[in-house]
């Protein structure tokens, strides 16, 4: 495989160990609000610095400031901001343009929106070459093919002629990286480069950045995901509210954190070690915990040989759910894990009887469920609740929280008979999910993501269901908020004995939550078993591959 030729960089090599980028007391403010409050760090050649934090921590603003793209109305100040002797603060727009792309490469998350969809992949990858007068019209396309090859894109000539939406997520992200390293910049800043990717693809992209690091590139990795960071970073800086609260060698920060916030963040990451343990430190459940009983008699929900076929735009039938069977017992959590396109959400929709299957049927307490008519099913609807990934789009934005929950109550088996009773019961439900009286009259738009998900859970609980289908319920949340919501779901199960059909792409979350697990790939169940069996003794090669690709904190070097 061709190593990307370092035509420019070789002459101005910084000695190993010496700082390529030095940042001292960097401050960024938008109007009156300071979002980065005096942070300092250095980036060294052949080394990776990870900046980790939750949303609003200022990590992305920091990344943009390093390429001079903070935004028009931002005020940037620093005691020192210098790239190999060049004071970046003093650069004018013209000098910045010469620096960006050539000295500093920048990779954003989700190449579907970070590459221009209307232009060919080749034009996008080759754009930095053109902008910085690399080669000529003839040599640039050759270089683009070389670059695509170097990031592991198969059939690079053809891919260069395609447009980004015609490529899979992994290939797109590689093309984006190829464009960022086209001129072999000495510093690459990657802002959440793997966030939208499946775990196996994520592993490939991280390997690619690691390869670039091996060749001497300095990498600054911005991420919310501590496990991703563990795989690549040499140094980790943890940001919160615009400040770096802890900074050190990655093994030390991730395995022996000193700061309380880092510890809380690490505890909040669900994994095989956190089963039966609370993710939010120092909290305890409302009632003394007992291992909930699982009734292994007749299944509460049973799917038999479910099959769903969609006709694609090309007129070809695709079997998205292929002979899937499952049983879910009362009080149990059944996890369905798989990558995008595995059919897990379609299975959930069939289980909810919101989607008709071409083959097979779903039984609820041994009685027909999926084969009922809408009218027959309606009185039974309250027995199955649902929580989605994005609660906001499942709320009427003009309804108050109280009205959302009250509406769900009135659909239950015993709707409130008076206004007072309704209010008391709404308040009771909100309390159960950790919300207070002051949120009753608030609209969902004014709540945070975690609070919205709590409202969604309260709504799902209102009609006293026996089962809640949770479709990626925590995927859009920060890790600490995710921890709170997962703890809440666990408490509710212990208190109420409700069962969960829990869909997630996140292996850690699935392991943390599930009693039994189905692993899905291309519409088929490739493996099933208890959570511990699946995660410690996987039999199927695909499950094994998933687990190998899964980034873990212990990988910190």
């Amino acid at each position, binding site marked *: 495989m061709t190593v990307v030729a370092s035509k420019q960089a070789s002459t101005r090599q910084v000695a190993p160990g010496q700082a390529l980028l030095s940042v001292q007391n960097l401050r960024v403010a938008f109007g009156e609000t300071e979002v980065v409050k005096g942070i300092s760090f250095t980036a060294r050649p052949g080394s990776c610095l990870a900046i980790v934090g939750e949303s609003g921590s200022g990590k992305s603003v920091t990344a943009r400031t390093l390429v001079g793209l903070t935004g028009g109305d931002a005020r940037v100040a620093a005691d020192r901001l210098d790239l190999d002797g060049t004071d970046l603060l003093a650069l004018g727009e013209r000098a910045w*343009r010469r620096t960006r*792309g050539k000295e500093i490469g920048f990779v954003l998350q989700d190449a579907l929106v970070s590459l221009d969809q209307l232009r060919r992949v080749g034009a996008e990858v080759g754009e930095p070459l053109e902008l910085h007068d690399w080669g000529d019209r003839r040599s640039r396309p050759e270089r683009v093919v070389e670059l695509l090859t170097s990031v592991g894109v198969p059939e690079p000539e053809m891919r260069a002629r395609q447009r980004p939406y015609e490529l899979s997520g992994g290939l797109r992200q590689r093309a984006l990286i190829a464009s960022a390293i086209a001129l072999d910049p000495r510093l690459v800043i990657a802002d959440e480069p793997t966030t939208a990717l499946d775990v196996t693809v994520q592993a490939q992209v991280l390997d690619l950045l690691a390869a670039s690091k091996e060749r001497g590139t300095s990498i600054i990795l911005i991420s919310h995901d501590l496990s991703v960071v563990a795989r690549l970073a040499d140094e980790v800086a943890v940001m919160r509210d615009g400040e770096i609260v802890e900074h050190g060698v990655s093994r030390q920060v991730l395995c022996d954190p000193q700061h309380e916030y880092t510890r809380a963040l690490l505890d909040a990451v669900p994994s095989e070690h956190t089963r039966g343990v609370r993710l939010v430190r120092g909290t305890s459940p409302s009632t003394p915990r007992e291992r909930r009983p699982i009734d292994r008699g007749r299944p509460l929900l049973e799917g038999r040989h479910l099959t769903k076929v969609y006709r694609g735009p090309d007129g070809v039938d695709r079997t998205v759910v292929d002979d899937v069977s499952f049983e879910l017992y009362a009080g149990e959590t059944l996890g369905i894990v798989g990558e995008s396109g595995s059919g897990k959400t379609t299975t959930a929709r069939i289980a909810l009887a919101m989607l008709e299957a071409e083959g097979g049927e779903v039984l609820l307490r041994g009685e027909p469920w999926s084969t009922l008519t809408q009218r027959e099913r309606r009185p039974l609807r309250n027995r199955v609740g649902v929580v989605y990934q994005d609660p906001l789009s499942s709320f009427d934005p003009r309804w108050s929280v109280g009205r959302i929950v009250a509406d769900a109550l009135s659909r239950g088996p015993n709707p409130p008979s008076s206004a007072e009773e309704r209010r008391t019961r709404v308040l009771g439900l909100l309390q159960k999910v950790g919300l207070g009286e002051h949120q009753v009259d608030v609209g969902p738009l004014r709540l945070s993501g975690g609070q919205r998900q709590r409202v969604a859970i309260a709504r799902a609980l209102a009609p006293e269901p026996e089962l809640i289908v949770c479709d990626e319920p925590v995927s859009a949340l920060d890790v600490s908020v995710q921890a709170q919501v997962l703890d809440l779901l666990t408490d509710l199960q212990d208190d109420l004995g409700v069962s969960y059909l829990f869909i997630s792409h996140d292996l850690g979350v699935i392991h943390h939550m599930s009693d039994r697990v189905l692993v899905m790939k291309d519409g088929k169940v490739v493996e099933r078993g208890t959570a511990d069996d699946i995660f410690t003794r996987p039999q199927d090669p695909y499950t094994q591959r998933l687990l190998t690709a899964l980034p873990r904190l212990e990988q910190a070097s």
Partner: protein
Amino acid sequence: MTTLAPDVLAPVTPTALPARRSVRAARRAALKAASAVAVLIAAASVTFFAQLAIPGDRATIILNLQNGREQKWSSSELSPVNEKFGFDHPLLTQYLHYVGGFFKGDLGTSYTQYRPVTSVIGAQILPTLVLTVGALVVAWIFALVVTVLTVRRGRAVTGIGSSFEAFTASLPHYWVGVILLVVFAVKIPIFPVIGGDGLWGTVLPVLTLAIPLSGFLGQVTRDEFDKVLDQPFITTARARGMGDTAIRLRHALRHAVLPAITLSGWALGALISGAVIAENIYGRPGIGQVLVTAVNTRDVPTVAGIVLVVAAVYIVANLLVDLAYAAVDPRLRAS
């Protein structure tokens, strides 16, 4: 360095199925053409029955028009007219003849000029098309120049740009036409007062139609441009070292014109009704003049013929819009 595994999750490449692709494209094109024909037949049917719905016997109307007075005519006076215009055939025959004739380029006979409607309209169509297509092109140029130059250029410049668009979009054609005529033909005689269909005489009528439309297209484009400039791929382009102007022209513009392209099909149709006003103000030959005369003289077949021609222009314009859209946004071709 380790070789990375080829991406197994890559979708089937489009080039792998060239045959099926072209079949699908052909089917889509055939469907489009068929629906265009269906719309034309519907339009022809509506205009045919609209002619019947006008109160009074058609032969009587024609004789009244001819003689310039309202009276009853004897059947011996009416029958040659009935025979000449085919009113003596059963209704279904007349209908099939009309719809069939439409596709053969026969739109019936004018009540006032005793000539085929096609020859009445025919000579007038070209000046109107020149006027409307010219106005559309000029409106696009104005709209693009104003948006590219003023969107996100600081509060003052952006304000000027969007106020200009709001102002021009709200101007009625007759007002613009009269003002341009007074200023650039009467006060400062650069252009002729009576235009004719020469190039020089076409300038003011084209501007009359183009200025309000440019404001409208500009507003739509500006909104989209503003949104596109916030997209992550714009940040990516900046991070490669691209300058602001290049970003606008090479990345943002192509995305920003899409909604305005969609509206252009509608705009071209609307311009034809605007053309009536411009042609009247500047005494310019065109379909608009013919339409006004035909309406005033109750020459129903001519009016119906013009309605059909406008419908056909609409349909062709929308087909062109579909093609243009697909050319700018290849995603449409893929799906």
